[in-house]
């Protein structure tokens, strides 16, 4: 069966002050194409760590992570970058826009890096769709939190990635904005037949996904 993502017996541990901290232990699961998954668990249980491993931003201590036909755990940093920029969109809790780039520039950056035609035009279309047509040339510091997160999502979906990773995307927002953000994310996944892995404390949001993975002390329960 063709899976989008496959984790098998993945371990992650940190070595601090001669103390071995096992953050993730024997984590195995699979993600289908177009599947939506939420990851829930207590603070410190390892949710963020798991997302980082999947996005190739951290290296597993052991185990295998397979994304499409690529064995991520074996690749070099630049090779993973190459895969990530075409296939994976990441949304952070704290938005993380480039502070001295305008909303439009933040979004078109991804498109330009991937050598798309008319990056500005495409970026503008997405932002328009997200209700930001009046905010194109504002810097992040001139945008509200919800607006910033919409720009951040626009940036992450600009390349039409197969997978979106979101780490508490609504964590800093009020319920109204949270609603808007989750709608945008699920609309995208449905339209583009993409997959979504979302870490959240928000039960409403978690219940919208097809599957829920509960993580406790670094293990999937």
């Amino acid at each position: 069966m063709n899976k989008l993502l496959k984790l098998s017996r993945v371990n992650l541990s940190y070595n601090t002050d001669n103390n071995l901290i096992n953050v993730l232990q024997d984590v195995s699961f699979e993600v289908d194409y177009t599947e939506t998954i939420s990851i829930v668990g207590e603070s410190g249980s390892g949710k963020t760590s798991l997302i980082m491993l999947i996005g190739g931003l951290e290296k597993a201590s052991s185990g295998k992570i397979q994304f499409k036909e690529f064995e991520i755990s074996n690749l070099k940093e630049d090779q993973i970058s190459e895969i990530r920029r075409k296939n994976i969109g990441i949304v952070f809790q704290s938005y993380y826009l480039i502070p001295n780039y305008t909303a439009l520039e933040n979004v078109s950056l991804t498109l330009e890096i991937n050598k798309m035609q008319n990056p500005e035009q495409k970026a503008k279309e997405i932002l328009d769709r997200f209700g930001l047509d009046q905010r194109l040339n504002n810097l992040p510091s001139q945008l509200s939190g919800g607006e910033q997160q919409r720009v951040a999502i626009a940036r992450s979906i600009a390349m039409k990635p197969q997978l979106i990773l979101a780490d508490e995307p609504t964590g800093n927002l009020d319920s109204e904005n949270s609603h808007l953000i989750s709608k945008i994310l699920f609309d995208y996944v449905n339209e583009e037949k993409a997959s979504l892995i979302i870490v959240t404390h928000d039960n409403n949001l978690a219940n919208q996904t097809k599957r829920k993975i509960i993580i406790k002390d670094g293990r999937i329960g």
Partner: protein
Amino acid sequence: MVELDNLANFKLYFKYALRDLSRSYSKILSIIVTLFISLFILSSILTVEDSLETELNNNSRLLLGGDIEIDYNRVEGNLKLVNEVKEFSTVSQMVEFSTMISTINKDNNKSSFTRVKSVDENYPLYGKVIFEPEDALDKLNKINNTILVNENIFKNLNLELNDTVKVQDKEFKVVGFVKSVPDIGGAFVFGDFALTGKKTIDTLNLRTLGSFLNYEYKARFNKSLSILEGSQKVEQLFKNEKRATIMYPGNSAGGLRRIIDNFSQFLSLVSISAMLIAGIGIANTLLSFINQKNSSIAIQKAIGIFSGNIKIIYYIQLAILLIIISVFSYGLSFFLLPFVDKFISEGLGLSIKAEFSLINYIKIFLVGLLVIGIFSIPTVNSIDQIKASSLFRNIFQSLQFRYSKFSIILSIILLILLISLFSFGYSRPIYSLFYFASFFFCLMVFFFLSRLTILFLKKNNSNFGIPLKVAIKNITQSKSITPITVMSLGLGITLLLTLAFVGSNFKREIAKSIPELAPDYFFLGIQKDQKYQFQKIIYNFDQKSKIEVVPMVSAKLAKINGVDPNTYIDQTNDSHWVIGNDRRVSWSESIPKDNPLVEGEWWNLTKPNQLQISLDSKVAKDFGIKLGDTFTLNIYGREIEGKVINFRLVDYRDLSINFAMLLNPQFAQTIPHEYLSTVKFDKKDNFKEIDFLNQFPSISIIKISDYLSKVTDVLNKVFIAVVIISTITVIIGLVVISSAIIVQGKIKIFQNLVFKILGFSKKEIIFSSIIEFIINFTSIILFSTLFAVIASKYVIENIFQLQWQFDFALFICVSLGAGLVTLLLIILTNLKYLSPKAYPLIRNE
């Protein structure tokens, strides 16, 4: 480094670089400022040097006064040959001699030692004589016994137009004054001069002028003849004329060239010091710049841009900056030229024009590129440390310089390139290499000094008052600006102190030598039959005067070991003067008491009929002469061979009678000669120049104090220029420090805020930063002074061979001045972090 995929990629990164730069240049303002200042000095030095060189080259014919010059020294030339030269050229005949000019109808008559040039109607063959009034030059050859003195004599002797002056025992009418003459290549560069018509030669008794006489024939070839053909023709004609020396435009102004070369070598070393200090600041500011961009870089990485490509974006930004700044500073250096020109044309009568030189621009760009390369590689490499995963954790660790093996090797290679560029472009690379070695040694010491201070204070942080405790905490904290302060200020102050010490010692030694060492007067051109009478008259003026009289003859070093002496020495060498022209040589029975023998034996008395030569040991070293080498001297057209049999240590500074070459008296006495005398009077006022000249109109008087005050004048100007330029290194150091403080700003704001919450007063915070400064500055001054003392002592004692003394007053002035300015700057920069408005900033972060 990752290779660029293609041009499109590069265009993209270039766009990002440009965008980044245009939006955040204010954060790297200190890089822009320091880079600009240091490149601007370098540009100015190169531009001025280049224009001077071009001027000298373009005008070498002007400086020589013709396409070729035939020199006969003290004898009139072979006019038959000269007339043959006239067949294919225009010849200007002239005689140059040194003499006294004195006023006769003033209340207070004065005299002046002057180099007189008697010229004919053809003078000048090239260039222009600048004079007043309009018809003055015309009158010289139309009216007998007329003279044009230079502006300086005109002023000093209180002359007016048509005044009468005395030259030897003849009266001359002053018909105007000269501002400049084109042919300054020879002795005319410094000192006073005058022009007279060619009839003067018949009027005056030139034969009594002895060796300070020069018959010259300058020629400008007819248009149909090329310079080369003309020169060959002249050479052919004068092939067998041993008394004549032929001079070419290329030889003109050799001394001037040497001065320019040395001076610009020195100045460019100072400017590269400024650049290197700027480099320290560049590395620091760039690191903080990248630190501020920490999250942006993490985002770029998360989006999938390679680390290598992000680095390229930063390198492109630096390159853009460098191109703009280097073009700008090179362009701006041209605006400085008119000022330098004014300064130079007053002194030398040269006028320099700015000329664009691609090579110079490339050189400036290259220097900037190398310095930026050396200091930015470890900084930009720190981008590798930034992880995209930190975006999930909200924590951005501050970056460190990153020295990979590769980047260390690359930096060293760039450094070697930089040093070579500044060493081998000049005539004496060894000085530059030595300078660089000392520079980096000092840099290392200051670096370790800062580490040591931090380490020491960390261990001794016991029971002090609160401000002191805060000060110590500031110094020892992990992002402390102590290392950068100590290094940049330390190097700047070391350089400034060294040059100040060298300058003050130099000036003091010269001023001091007037009363103690030197005689009061030189008397030139005393003939054999005047020797006895001369001494008698001097004693008449002052019974207790000390008179030294030595024989003297002009000789030209024609060959060394049978070959042209020019093959032994480079034009830019210090000792090249020995073969430039006729030199005065003397002789002595015994070893002169202030000229100790360093090698060989004094005269071999068993060979009285053979010429033996005693040589200045420094000259011997510069020429590579060994004992037993053969010199061929041309004395009044006669070539005599002699052996060098000993070397003496000659100290020209004492202004007594010193000669590079001495001959054995048994042989030399047979040569027609004259005398040179120095006199030290017991009471200087007893001597009356005008009375003396009435009795010995042909003897020239040089008053040492006048001569020395001229030298000190020039030295003062040079000293001021040098101090200004070295102050720039301190200024750059200050910019570096203040940028380091600004870099530290956010920590400072936070810190001060906490202090404020804890109930700390503004005063106490300022007080603690003063203490911090005093701790740092004390150690800086200690080491800077130590280095400056060693370096200036070395320069004064070994290069100038003068006595070195610690100048306490100067030391206090320089260190206190630099200290106060730095302190002021530190307080001013810190002041803006003291305001409580810092709250919003904290919330934003």
